[in-house]
């Protein structure tokens, strides 16, 4: 399994998500781990950071349509950012740090943003 880890917060250009979607379009959909500020990608209320750019939430919500269905979000990161399960997209899986460690140990390749 390949994993893309998002640690940086969403920027005005969503190039990390574009890479994930491109890999998925070529049948290489990775699992995703959202942690630290990267957990903000899962926020349902995230709008575009620039008036002419893509909505973070809309782009993120399209991931399951690209067969990106294993999207894990670090519970500790959620809590430190004041996020709850109600704030995040329903397809994201809140996961403990220990379980994330075990998951990452199984990864064949990882990319970190």
């Amino acid at each position, binding site marked *: 399994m*390949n994993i893309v880890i998002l640690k940086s917060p969403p920027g005005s*250009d969503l*190039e990390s998500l*574009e*890479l994930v979607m*491109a*890999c998925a*379009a*070529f*049948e*290489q959909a*990775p699992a995703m781990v959202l942690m630290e500020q990267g957990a903000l990608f899962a926020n349902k209320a995230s709008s575009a950071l620039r008036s002419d750019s893509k909505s973070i939430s809309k782009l993120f919500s399209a991931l399951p349509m690209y067969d990106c269905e294993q999207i894990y979000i670090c519970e500790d990161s959620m809590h430190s950012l004041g996020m709850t399960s109600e704030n995040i997209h329903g397809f994201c899986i809140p996961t403990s740090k220990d379980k994330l460690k075990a998951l990452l140990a199984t990864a064949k*390749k*990882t*990319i*970190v*943003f």
Partner: protein
Amino acid sequence: MTTDSLHYTLLIKSAPFDDETNETAAAFAAAVLAAGHKIDRVFFYQDAVLIASNTLTPPQGQQPLHSHWTKLKEHYPLPLQVCIANALRRGILDDSEASRYDKIKTLCEGFELCGLGEMAEAMKQSDRIITF
């Protein structure tokens, strides 16, 4: 190349002016190649695409940012791939895109603009992906 050699993809995404990551990545690539491994591609993404700009003018006495890579490419087969979408956003165009947008070419010799499909290929085929 030895039979146990590995295939690497290097993903460079750090902005070239922030720190020494570009130099570190190039030194890593040199060590990998010297050890007999193969680098399938060096893929420049996000602000790292600026490394491939031919308009950057270093201060006197300093080497251009791209020279670490082009010098390495003189000795090894080393595809230097620049994400086309990220490059266009940052004003880096090859001959074809310059013609399309009626602008001038700003991509350094030795680099090529490529789609993200190359990273999907890396996910599939390379033994290791190292992110800088």
